[in-house]
């Protein structure tokens, strides 16, 4: 069974088009969702949560129809929003237990499970404190706990590492990785940080101006650079680089000091790098096969979409929230 499918989904806020004829089929696993603000990401998330019926089109998430079965859908989906979720006066464990109860769990089960999930996420000591007192990192984990309490099959995460310091970010990504790999949860990770997606997700969906530009495995999207290496050295390199060129290697200097990219012909042995360096009394301290950075993938695929100079007819680039008035005219659900 696929994770979710969307068929020709289109959504308008008043006259503003947020999604334009999107058709997708995604298999279970960890998926990244990238795009500019206003490109349709949040609209897609709302539709996937069954909170909003698209103006046109059909779809299903985990087998539940997005138009008709929104409520049942949310029993199997956990959502971790970017915004703060606060219900005043509750302690951490009470908050998560409330989340469980609202997902249909009987009260005692919800409470027991809340304790368990909070312990798993490292909030064991803080769970009896009022959650208004939590630090940023703790609040993020609390949101994740509320999303996990009813053991969903799919987690929708909106900027899960926002506001976290490097240690916290690393911990959160590690946690998400474990959930995805070891416990078989599917994730949809919506974020601007491509580093996060690289770390956690196997596939990625790129949305731009209301259309899905790309969906696919990250590995497959990365351009296969055969015979392309990044070299780093210590010492003077000019003659070394000239030697390389004379051997038929294309050398590209990209501005970083003591570094260059070498594009080698067929049948090249990396030993030759060392030999040539040795000839010139130079020491190589780095040799890596070049792989396309996810960032470059994104640029490449997105830049192909926007024709120069053309003003977008549909949603404005990085268009911000749709007009308040327009948003109110078409409520979902």
């Amino acid at each position, binding site marked *: 069974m696929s994770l979710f499918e969307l068929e020709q989904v289109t959504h308008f806020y008043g006259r503003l088009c947020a999604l334009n004829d999107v058709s997708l089929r995604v298999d279970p696993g960890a998926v990244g969702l990238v795009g*500019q*603000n206003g490109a349709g990401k949040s609209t897609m998330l709302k539709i996937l949560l069954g909170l909003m019926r698209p103006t046109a089109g059909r779809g299903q998430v985990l087998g539940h129809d997005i138009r008709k079965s929104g409520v049942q859908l949310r029993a199997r989906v956990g959502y971790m929003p970017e915004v703060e979720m606060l219900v005043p006066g509750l302690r951490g464990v009470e908050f998560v237990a409330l989340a469980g109860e609202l997902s249909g769990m009987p009260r005692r089960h919800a409470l027991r499970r809340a304790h368990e999930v909070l312990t798993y996420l490292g909030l064991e000591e803080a769970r009896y404190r009022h959650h208004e007192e939590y630090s940023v990192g703790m609040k993020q984990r609390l949101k994740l706990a509320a999303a996990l309490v009813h053991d969903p099959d799919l987690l929708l995460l909106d900027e899960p590492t926002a506001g*976290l310091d490097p240690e916290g970010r690393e911990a959160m990504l590690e946690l998400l990785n474990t959930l995805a790999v070891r416990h078989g949860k599917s994730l949809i990770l919506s974020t*601007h940080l491509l580093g996060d997606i690289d770390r956690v997700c196997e596939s990625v969906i790129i949305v731009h101006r209301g259309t899905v530009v790309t969906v696919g495995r990250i590995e497959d999207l990365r351009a296969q650079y055969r015979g392309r290496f990044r070299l780093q050295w*210590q010492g003077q390199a000019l003659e070394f680089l000239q030697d390389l060129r004379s051997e038929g290697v294309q050398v590209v200097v990209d501005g970083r000091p003591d570094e260059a990219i070498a594009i080698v012909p067929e049948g090249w042995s990396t*030993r030759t790098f060392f030999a040539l360096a040795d000839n010139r009394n130079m*020491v190589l*301290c780095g040799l890596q096969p070049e792989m396309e950075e996810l960032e470059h993938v994104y*640029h490449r695929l997105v830049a192909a979409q926007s024709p120069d100079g053309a003003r977008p007819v549909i949603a404005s680039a990085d268009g911000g*929230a749709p007009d308040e008035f327009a948003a109110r005219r078409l409520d979902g659900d």
Partner: protein
Amino acid sequence: MTMEKMSVMNPNLLGTQSSQAPAEPSATTVPLADHAPLVIFQEVSKWYGPVIGVNEVSIELRPGITGLLGANGAGKTTLIKLLAGQLRPSLGDVLVCGVRAWSAAAKSHVGFCPDVDVFYEEMSGRAFVQTMARLHGFDRRAASERTEEVLAEVGMSDRADRRLRGYSKGMRQRIKLAQALVHDPDIIVVDEPLNGIDPVGRRELMDLFQSLGRRGKTLLVSSHILDEMDTLAERVLFMGRGRILAAGTLKEIRDMLDNHPLQLRISADRSRELASRLVHWELVRGIELRGRDDLWVQVHRPSEFFPRFADLVLNEGFEIGRLQTTDVTAGAIFDYVMKEAAHF
């Protein structure tokens, strides 16, 4: 030499030409680094009631980009606010271009882009930036010219007429940056500038920062996204518990962490045989086999290791697929510094 001692003994390490750095003059020697420091913190401490924010910090900032890294609660925001003149130090002095940061005169030298935003939601972005320009003392014509220039720099020229209420997070960030730049300050302080900005925008704004650095501005950028700090910041400041733990370029700081041998990732056609050769070397502290062909090797004295390694490769005919230093990144160094700082 521990981190702590380093920071007390060498407050001027930032921006000092690499007299103490290993013998590799950088291709991009920055002459700007010879300028007198524009920002000086002289043993500055600040506390709020009983809570201490910053504890005897002495640093100097010179033109170029300096990254400010640290855990949440380490005192970064306090440091930034002291620099921007929003807080007065409880002890010590903060000098900006020779005047106290707290004074009104200093404000014209500093552009501040905070991480929170509080705007007049009813204004348009353009009007907001223009108002900020007027508040800095520009007359109406100069203000609107500067506004247009700065909006073009941050990429908001065509979108700045809508009311701020309807802006996405990324657009708000750009307007914040615009108002920090509008009076062309020499010192620009940004706290989490790329929050909420999509990947393309991040690249654009990072390029903007780099061009500002090249133009001779002094930038202090505080961010948690360490891989971006890698490319962006020439020098970094690590903060923890209100103190400066380390200051310098990433390479310099890495070199100082001699408790942590350099971590290399090597892959070769005959990895295990290579491992068996390397394990005999004194320079090699540890070898770990991961995956099929990956060796993770910890070495002392890298400047001796690499030539020996090259000789080994040539003599024994290994086909090396990868030779990579994995821990001169801001991320790895951050971990090491935090660990080091915990020892006393």
